[in-house]
């Protein structure tokens, strides 16, 4: 991942603990981000609860550098089946 979205990765990791974070710039303007997070923190949680964890982590940046996000959240097991 490019270094310029490292702050996003760091914020999410510091809130969630062990996780993998992938960030894509959807529009080329660096403020509409597609974010994929893989973590076992999501186990047993509803999709909305998973998204709320990420939105909480990014709360302050959503008022500053980030305008909009599209989120994908997976447990490790689920992500492995997608990759399969």
């Amino acid at each position, binding site marked *: 991942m490019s270094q310029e979205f490292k702050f996003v990765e760091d914020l999410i990791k510091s809130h969630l603990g062990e996780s993998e974070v992938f960030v894509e710039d959807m529009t080329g303007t660096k403020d509409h981000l597609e974010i994929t997070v893989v973590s076992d923190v999501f186990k047993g949680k509803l*999709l*909305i609860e998973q*998204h709320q964890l990420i939105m909480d982590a990014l709360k302050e940046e959503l008022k500053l550098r980030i305008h909009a996000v599209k989120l994908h959240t997976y447990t490790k097991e689920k992500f492995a089946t997608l990759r399969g």
Partner: protein
Amino acid sequence: MSFNILNNQVQEVQTVDKSLGLKEQIESILNSSSVILFMKGNADMPQCGFSANSVAILKSTGVAFKTFNILNDMDIRQGLKEFSNWPTYPQIYVNQKLIGGNDILTEMYKSGELQEYLASNLK
């Protein structure tokens, strides 16, 4: 499935008791059905593509649900965003609990999670 169920599947919450506080107004809407869709427009005439998509998904699950048109009520439109800590519409509630906006509803529907969730949470 009988035609009767289909015909009565979607109803609209038309009025809210405005003598109540805002939180109580929201709760009275949430308590009026196990499944509530806060949307722009109504099921027959959605005023937004995302709202239209959510209506279509809920209809296809076969569950009975009610809609509330937030375009007709600025108090609810603003108040619910704070109540739920969710910034956009549509919003879908099952048993008074927010389960998502249109993106999440769509993803849950495609994965089968929505049908499972409705089956295990609705009587």
